[in-house]
């Protein structure tokens, strides 16, 4: 091997080592299993973005190391050691042109890949299931329009957790009822704002069943930090079970039980805003909530199958206790559906947070739910108000809510 | 770019020295007008985006009175002529004629503003309030901003007349008139665009 190529190859080795060190330093510095890690794609859309990252970040690393290395060399080499005042040269145009053209070439390579990925990600023609997502201060509503091919024969309305079949191309049709929110499940795709008055499309697809965490990413007011979401990918069979369960008829609690008393409390206190499909009053008339009379944004979470969800209050709180929660999160992919579909059983319920929420919601989550702040919104709440429930009422309500599964 | 820094060192001592040979004040006014292009551009764009969004309120075509607005547009256009005549007479140092033309310009401008006030009240009576719809908010904001500009222009014209009459100008008189004129013509030019885009092209 002649000297020149040896120098070259050793330079290459040094460069490679440096890139390696920088990259591994970054990786070693990362948390393991951070639920919202953008560098752990779990679906084709996020993978497309990650492929692009895998191109751009190394380029940035290499350029950065070359430039900073050069800078350090210059800082050391041309230190004032008593040398002469240098010749007052004003620059070399050929060098300038080179240093303009080289970055331009690098960027045009990046540009081509970027361009392609933008249009690949915008693809929506081959959608297999559509779910409407509506942001609201400070929770997300999911509504599944009728799609008989997925067994959805009547609209399903839910909140907190987006449940969808794995390995299926899901199209979210996003909008908002009040301010701008942004839907973001990092493992599945980049974020897309939910803007009132507009419908934005976001494609999600999960490779495997599992739970994927996300968070509202556009500042949306007081409780922005508490507006979380979880996306639940189930196998196609498990999803069919979930769909069927969501559509099953309402079974009122047997008369005389504490659950039945709880139903009465619910009708008196909660049914103004919250909907439980199939719930009927004493005369047998269906009870239809009218949240738009009380809530600025015009909706409150539909509680029909509350106990099939693991979270409440905009996914701020777990509806299951820590142990049961860990069972679901920790379940391997093939067991995940089974663990999730168990829902919230009595021994799994997170009694503490749920009761505290019922006792005084505004204390649990900052919201515009105080009477003296309601002037500009014509007296309507944003978020859940303080209801002055007695402890007895709360006991009954919890018992009743446990029947909603 | 003009590079005429030919003044002697003696002249350079004076503040009146100018590297480009053009007046500071005029340059500042032109920069301001360049900036105003983006101000009115933003207001016009807002209107263009919202022109068709009328909610329950009246549509533009229902309330615009094209013959009336055409006349007031014409009045404003002609005020540009009287303004330019004021400038040329000031440059000839014929200040009595300058004052006359400035007054004519101010009267024409005031007529335009009066017409706009009349128009606004007529629209209001037909149910187009400021809060009625996106169309109404953006229409009133755009034309109102323009109206305020015209009003400020009228005040500037009348003040110039006063200052010239009392001989209290602190600078070059002809240039002051010319600069007021630049502002005035710009206001006219903006109306040329508003008249076409807002009134003549239906939503």
């Amino acid at each position, binding site marked *: 091997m002649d000297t020149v190529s040896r120098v070259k190859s050793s330079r290459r080795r040094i460069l490679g080592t440096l890139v390696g060190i920088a990259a591994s330093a970054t990786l070693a*510095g*990362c*948390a393991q299993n*951070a639920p919202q*890690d953008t560098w752990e794609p779990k679906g084709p859309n996020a993978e497309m973005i990650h492929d692009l*990252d895998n191109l751009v970040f190394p380029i*940035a690393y290499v*350029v950065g190391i070359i430039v900073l290395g050069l*800078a350090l060399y*210059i800082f050391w080499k*041309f230190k004032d050691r008593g*040398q002469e*005042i*240098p*010749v007052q040269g*004003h*620059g070399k*145009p050929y060098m300038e042109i080179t240093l*303009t053209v080289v970055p331009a070439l690098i960027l045009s390579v*990046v*540009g081509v890949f*970027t*361009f392609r990925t*933008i249009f690949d990600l915008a693809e929506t023609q081959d959608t297999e299931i559509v779910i409407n997502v509506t942001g609201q*201060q400070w929770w997300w509503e999911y509504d599944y329009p009728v799609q008989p091919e997925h067994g959805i024969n009547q609209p399903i309305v839910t909140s907190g957790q987006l449940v969808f079949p794995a390995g299926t191309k899901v199209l979210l049709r996003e909008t908002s009822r009040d301010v*701008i929110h*942004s839907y973001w499940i*990092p493992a599945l795709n980049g*974020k897309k704002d939910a*803007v009132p*008055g507009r419908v934005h499309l976001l494609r999600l697809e999960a490779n495997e069943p599992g739970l994927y965490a996300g*968070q509202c*990413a556009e*500042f949306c007011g007081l409780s*922005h930090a508490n507006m979380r979401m979880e996306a639940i990918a189930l196998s196609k069979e498990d999803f069919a079970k979930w769909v069927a369960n969501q559509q099953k008829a309402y079974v009122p609690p047997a008369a005389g039980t504490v659950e039945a008393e709880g139903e009465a409390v619910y009708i008196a206190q909660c049914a103004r805003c919250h909907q439980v499909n199939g719930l009927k009053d004493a005369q047998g008339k269906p009870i239809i909530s009218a949240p738009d009379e009380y809530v600025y944004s015009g909706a409150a979470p539909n509680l029909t199958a509350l106990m099939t969800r693991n979270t409440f209050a905009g996914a701020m709180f777990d509806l299951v206790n820590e142990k049961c929660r860990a069972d679901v999160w920790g379940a391997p992919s093939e067991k995940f559906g089974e663990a999730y579909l168990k829902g919230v059983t009595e021994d799994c319920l997170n009694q503490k947070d749920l009761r505290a929420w019922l006792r005084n919601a505004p204390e649990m989550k900052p919201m*515009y739910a105080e009477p003296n702040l309601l002037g500009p919104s014509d007296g309507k709440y944003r978020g859940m108000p303080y209801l002055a429930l007695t402890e007895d009422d709360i006991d009954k309500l919890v018992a009743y809510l446990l029947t909603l599964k | 770019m003009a*590079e005429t820094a030919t*003044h*002697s*060192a*003696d002249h*350079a*001592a*004076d*503040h*009146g020295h100018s590297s*480009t040979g053009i007046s500071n*004040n005029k340059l*500042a006014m032109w920069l301001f007008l360049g900036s105003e292009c*983006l101000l009115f551009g933003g207001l016009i764009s*807002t209107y263009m*985006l919202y022109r068709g969004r009328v909610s329950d309120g009246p549509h533009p075509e229902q309330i615009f009175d094209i013959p009336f607005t055409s006349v007031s547009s014409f009045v404003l256009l002609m005020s540009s002529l009287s303004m330019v005549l004021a400038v040329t007479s000031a440059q000839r140092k014929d200040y009595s004629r300058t004052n006359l033309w400035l007054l004519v310009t101010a009267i024409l401008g005031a007529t335009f503003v009066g017409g706009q006030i009349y128009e606004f009240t007529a629209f209001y009576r037909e149910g187009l309030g*400021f809060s009625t719809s996106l169309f109404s*908010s953006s229409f009133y*904001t755009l034309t109102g*901003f323009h109206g305020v500009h015209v009003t400020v222009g009228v005040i500037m014209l009348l*003040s110039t007349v006063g200052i010239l009459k009392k001989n209290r100008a*602190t*600078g070059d008189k002809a240039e*002051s008139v010319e600069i007021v004129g630049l502002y005035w013509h710009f206001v006219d030019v903006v109306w040329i665009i508003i008249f076409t885009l807002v009134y003549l092209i239906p939503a």
Partner: protein
Amino acid sequence: MAIIERPDTATVPAVVTPSQAFGVIKRPVASSGWREWLFTVDHKKIGIMYGAVALFFFIVGGVEALLIRLQLAAPDGRILSADQYNQMFTMHGTTMVFLFGMPMAAAFANYFLPLQIGARDVAFPRLNALSLWLLVVGGLILNASWFLGGAADGGWFMYAPNSGPVFSPSNGVDYWVLGLQVAGLASLIGSINLIVTVLNMRAPGMTLMKMPIFTWMILVVQFLLVFSLPVITVALVLLMFQRSYGATFFDVSQGADPLLWQHLFWIFGHPEVYVLILPAFGIISEVLPTFSRKPLFGYPFVVFSGAAIGLVGFGVWAHHMFASGLGPVSVAVFSIATMAIAIPTGVKVFNWLLTMWGGKIWYTTAMKFAIGLVTLFTIGGLSGVTHSVAPSDTQQTDTYYIVAHFHYVLFGGMVFGLFSGFYYWWPKVFGKMLNEKLGSWNFWLMVIGMNMTFGPMHILGLQGQPRRMYVWTEARAGEGFFNLGFWNLIASIGSFILAAGVLFFLINIVHTAKKGKVAPADPWDARTLEWITTNPPKPHNFDRIPVVHHLDEFFHRKYAEDTATHTMKRYATAEEVIKAEEDAADAHIHLPSPSYWPLVLALGIGVLCMGVVYGVPVMVVGAAILVFSVFGWVLEPSTADDSEIDPPSVDGSTKEIAPIG
């Protein structure tokens, strides 16, 4: 108008004749004490006041930042409530951008731009004072909200419809809207003033391509301001009309499109980024050559890349909106345009490095901050390139990765550049040298603190921590020792180290004021025109307006190439160069007199604005003051006799040097 008979001795103060009985109110006579500052129209005094105001707000914004970092040091922080936190980050951003970054750049521009082009003052001295006082009024209105029911809480970007009356019911947003309009007006006036100054008031022989690079960058910035400020003004007016007068611009129930605000905001907001960074680029483009003892490498390329950054900067605003729901066509176009802007930026970095290449580098604190900028900005620039890739950006935007990026650019870039300027020009402004040892502490603590604070934010963001959250939860922090909690804590500790660094600067100021070393005439062996005069400069800047033959004129008056050895040889000291100028002093030097009107006019506008919140009567009072002061301004007498004008006026009409200004 003050007439300064060219002094026989250097110590003669500005001799001012009182105003003649001509006009409504007499012009004030230059006096000592507070009046000297309140009514001054001297660009140097105004520059110092700009600096003081900006430094004050830097500390205010810094304290806000520390509170934010305290809150986020641990999960479920309880230092601030959600509402307080939202106000805090809104005001931190707003303060740092509008009340620190822009005014501090304006301070440098005001002080040094006339000196660098060999002028006695700016084109419109009274308008210059007006800009300052409007900025002060704007800053007061913005921060008064803290004491009047809470500050704005919608983020510095104030997206509609969250900024509407329903979602932001306190008056905070009203004060924000008004304060920014006033501060914007201040910048607009200032920018027109400076453009005219640069174009029209250069010393003889100083062609555009012989202007110091700092002046060039300031010129580009002023053009950016002139053409971007009206856009934010439109947005602010629309929001004000909605909040205060029932307009419907962002009322979605009427069919409004919230993206209108985003477009208007970012059409302004992106050029604004360059407004903040280019002055710092200009400063270090002066500092690097000075301390490398070499001219700036590729001067014309640095100039044109600055102009290119400015121009292209108007075409990339939508890259702040990649997740906003623009169509793929718009996203693709803006993505590519954004990449294009990396090219001129890269040109700058390469030219700085090549300036140092082959130099004789002298590591003063000013130089350390300048190379701090070069390295830290490079990191910020590269993370910026990763955002320009729109699909990646949808993962990164609104996370701490963005926070990391723009703090590397704005703190590592803008703030380091400004600090470099402090250390470089302090002797010029105050005649005393800042202490280099304290400076070293200042620099190293800031470098360490800055990297500890913002470095971990790259990891936080890429691992999914969104911005603008008043708490983060352990449940989403991941496992392992280096989880997000660890990095949040490191960032918080870093922010206090950073603050300690800034504290050393404040200590240095006090130390220097008390027992600082008196600065020699040319402490850095500098290169540009501002050094061809005393430290600090006399009120009229130059005894004789220097005639310019070279780029880096001052250097070429001191050094020439030895034809035999082809090395640079010094043949004159700075003192000799300055002496030569003093000996040939101009016979008549005109400086404008102080004036009451800039201050009164600014107050009038302030009162007028408060009328939007407090009702029509207040507005009427404000308007009355405004109209009165405008007439006072226009009719303000000139104190000079015609005979004292040089050259004598032709038709007797010219009474003042700067009739409107």
